[in-house]
Structure formats: structure tokens, C-alpha cells
């Protein structure tokens, strides 16, 4: 873990960031244990935010995404998505270093170099076909690697499902993003616009899945919460071989 601290200290971090990192170290250095079940003490407030998010989706995001999907042909949307992923790579690399994973950090650096040059500034993604596929990460995962537990379920306005740890991770990702320090204001604004377009593109591409959760479930809040928690734990390698396993033969009436 010391190597993490050293490499982390190489960057000039704002005081808030340093404090958060130290707190995370105090939380312990072993990966947090696999969580089970659902911890949702903020449910009443979360449900209000969920209803707000749903109405934003119905009235703004979903129609905009379908407008974008109709206006921009597939290859253009894909280019925007590639470009947005490429912009996220410096932050990913920083997090991989903080997680003590030099291998993926090197691979993502190679990916950044290939896609920025051969991939025409990131519009194309030749790196994936070279075996350097996108390996998404963030400060939420870094906190997980440092031993912080996921905490309670949280639904964030406009962002959607999250948990205590990933909320802190999101704040840190915004604070630490190397692009924020590297890009002048105009370019940073362009980068934000690209991220928004890419978000609309994903809302369009996964519209069947998202619509089925938001508009076809009997309880879209509970369904989104379950899907998020299970998928997030899976992403972090907290596989549910023992925890969430449902054996319908052992206890067919049990919960």
C-alpha cells in the first residue's frame, strides 16, 4: 500500500483530496468484504429523488436521447462515445495507480496513446482490436480497494443509483480529474458537452433495458436499486457465490 501513497503524492492534490485519501487509509487497507442484501435507511428521500429523476428522464433526457439517436447516425454516436471514453482515460489511469494496479495502468496508458494518435484524437478505438479494451474504473473502486465498505444505497439527483462510497468517489473523480488541470476553460467546456452527448447516446442505445426498468416495472425504484447493487458488486469482483445465492430447491417458500 505504501507504493500507492508514494505514487499518489506525486500529484499535487487539493487539500480536500488528501484528507479523503488519508481517511480512506484509516478505514483500512484490505479490500472491503463482500456485502450482502440491501441497506437503505434513506429510502424515503431516495424515492423522492427517484421520482424526480424519472420525470427528468420522461420530459428531457429520454426525448433528447431519441432526438440525438435520430439525428446522428450510428458511426457518429460511436465516435462521440469513443471520444468521451478517451477523455476519461487519464482519470482511469490515475485511479489504477492509486489502486496499486500498475499493469492495467500501463495498458490504459497505451490505449490512450494509440487512440489519441492512430484513433484520430479518440474518435476511433483501434486499441480495443489490439487487445487494449476499455477497463472502466473510478475513485469509488479505489476506495473499495482501500477497504471502504459500500455503505448505504443512495439515489443521486440526475446521476441515479449509487452508494455512500461511490458518492464520495464521484466527488473525488471530479476533483482529481487530470483533464481539469490540463485543459483550458473552453476545452474543458467542450469536454463536458461531449460527455453529455455520450450520455444521451448511451440512454438511446440501452433504451430497451432502461425503459423496461423505469417504465415497465411494478416498483422501478426497488428494481433499479437491486440491479445497481448486484451489478456494482459484480464489477468490483464481489461475486455472490455464497451471499446472494438463491436456492429455490432448498427453501422454495423462503426469502
Amino acid at each position, binding site marked *: 500500500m505504501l507504493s500507492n501513497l508514494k505514487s499518489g503524492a506525486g500529484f499535487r492534490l487539493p487539500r480536500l483530496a488528501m484528507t479523503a485519501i488519508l481517511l480512506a487509509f484509516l478505514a483500512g487497507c484490505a479490500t472491503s468484504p463482500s456485502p450482502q442484501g440491501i441497506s437503505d435507511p434513506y429510502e424515503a428521500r431516495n424515492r423522492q429523488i427517484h421520482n424526480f429523476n424519472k420525470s427528468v428522464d420522461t420530459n428531457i433526457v429520454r426525448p433528447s436521447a431519441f432526438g440525438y439517436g435520430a439525428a446522428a447516425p450510428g458511426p457518429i454516436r*460511436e465516435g462521440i462515445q469513443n471520444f468521451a471514453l478517451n477523455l476519461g482515460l487519464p482519470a482511469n489511469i490515475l485511479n489504477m495507480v492509486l489502486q*496499486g494496479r500498475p499493469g492495467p495502468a500501463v495498458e490504459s496508458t497505451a490505449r490512450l496513446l494509440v487512440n489519441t494518435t492512430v484513433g484520430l484524437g479518440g474518435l476511433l478505438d483501434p486499441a480495443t482490436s489490439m487487445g487494449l479494451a476499455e477497463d472502466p474504473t473510478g475513485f469509488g473502486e479505489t476506495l473499495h480497494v482501500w477497504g471502504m465498505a459500500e455503505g448505504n444505497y443512495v439515489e443521486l439527483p440526475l446521476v441515479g443509483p449509487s452508494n455512500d462510497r461511490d458518492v464520495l468517489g464521484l466527488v473525488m473523480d471530479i476533483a482529481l480529474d487530470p483533464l481539469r488541470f490540463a485543459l483550458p476553460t473552453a476545452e474543458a467546456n467542450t469536454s463536458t458537452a461531449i460527455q453529455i452527448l455520450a450520455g444521451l447516446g448511451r440512454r438511446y442505445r440501452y433504451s430497451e433495458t432502461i425503459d423496461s426498468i423505469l417504465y415497465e416495472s411494478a416498483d422501478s425504484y426497488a*428494481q433499479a436499486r437491486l440491479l445497481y447493487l*448486484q451489478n456494482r458488486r459484480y464489477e468490483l469482483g464481489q461475486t455472490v457465490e455464497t451471499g446472494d445465492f438463491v*436456492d429455490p430447491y432448498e427453501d*422454495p*417458500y*423462503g426469502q
Partner: protein
Amino acid sequence: MANDFTRRQVLNLGVAGLVAATAALALPRGAWALDVGQARGLIDEVVGEVNRVINSGASEAAMLVQFEALFVRYADVPVIARSVLGPAGRSASAGQMSAYSQAFQGYMSRKYGRRFREFIGGRIEVVDARPVKSYFEVVSTAFLKGSAPFDVRWQVSDKSGRLLFFNIIIEGVNMLASERTEVGAILDQQGGDIDRLIAVLQQT
């Protein structure tokens, strides 16, 4: 952390691996190997049948009927239905349970069958199968057009007397758990009335 093994831990793992390998060699080529192969074969068959229906060019309504037939043939529908309903099933009569199971089977086939378009031009490949506790897990990878490959796991059991799948886990998302949430929410909305739940499932 997985990559923080000390030399001793690595050594211990090596020894454990050697012991396991020796034990595996010493044991007769037993029932496990055969059953793993059968579990894998079952899912290979399901995937093949689903692909055949999707690429048949039949109308959506006709496909949904065929998906339901496949679901009945390859999945343990009564056990899935009962597990999804949970404790509410205890107070149900035998007639209600069988009507519910029938309604659930149609609801599942329509719900998942309607998503078939996403699979056109894609494929699912079975990559591995292994015994886990009292069941088998068949690991497959889905390659769909325009998305990165993703992990689909099938849980298979022969406790019904036949080898059937009872759960599907897509990138960690568990179908049984998801349907428990959904059917539980419908049941709550219907005031806990199973007959009304059945009516909703028939229309969904």
C-alpha cells in the same frame, strides 16, 4: 488484495493445487465430470434453440409462443415460480399455485422474449461449466452487436429429476432476485391477493 500475495501464500497455494490435482487424479472419473458435461450440453442446446427461433424470421407473436415452449422444456418453471412468489405461496391453494405458475410462465416468456431483437446478429457462447455446492454453473459470454461482450451464467440443477436451469445471472444481476422484487411489488399493489396477481401477470 488479490495481487498482494506473499511468497509463502503463493507457496501454500502451489501446495494446495498439487494436493487437489493429485486427489483429482486418484479419484475415479466420476459422476461430477459427466454431469458438468450434461449441464453444459443443456445450455448449449438452449442457446442453439433460442438462436434458431430468433433467426427463423417468424412473427413476434409466433416467436413468443416458441420462447414459452423452450422455457417450459429447459427451465424448472414450477420451482422458479414458487421461489419468486416466496412466503406468499404458503397461504395459496393448490389450484391458485398452478394458475399462478401458468401465468408466471407466460409473463416471463413475453417479458424476456420481447427483447429478442437485441440478440439478432449476436451469439452466446458457452465457455465453462462447473459444480457449485448443490448445482452446476454454466458460464457463457454474450456477444451482441454494438456492445462489449458480457457474462451470462446459468444455474442448472437435476433436483427435479431432470437437468433444468433455474436461474440466469447477467453481469451479476440475478433473475430470481429481480423477479422476486417485481412479483412482490405487484402482489403488494394488489393488496396481497394472489388471484389479482395472476390476472396482472396474464396481462403483462
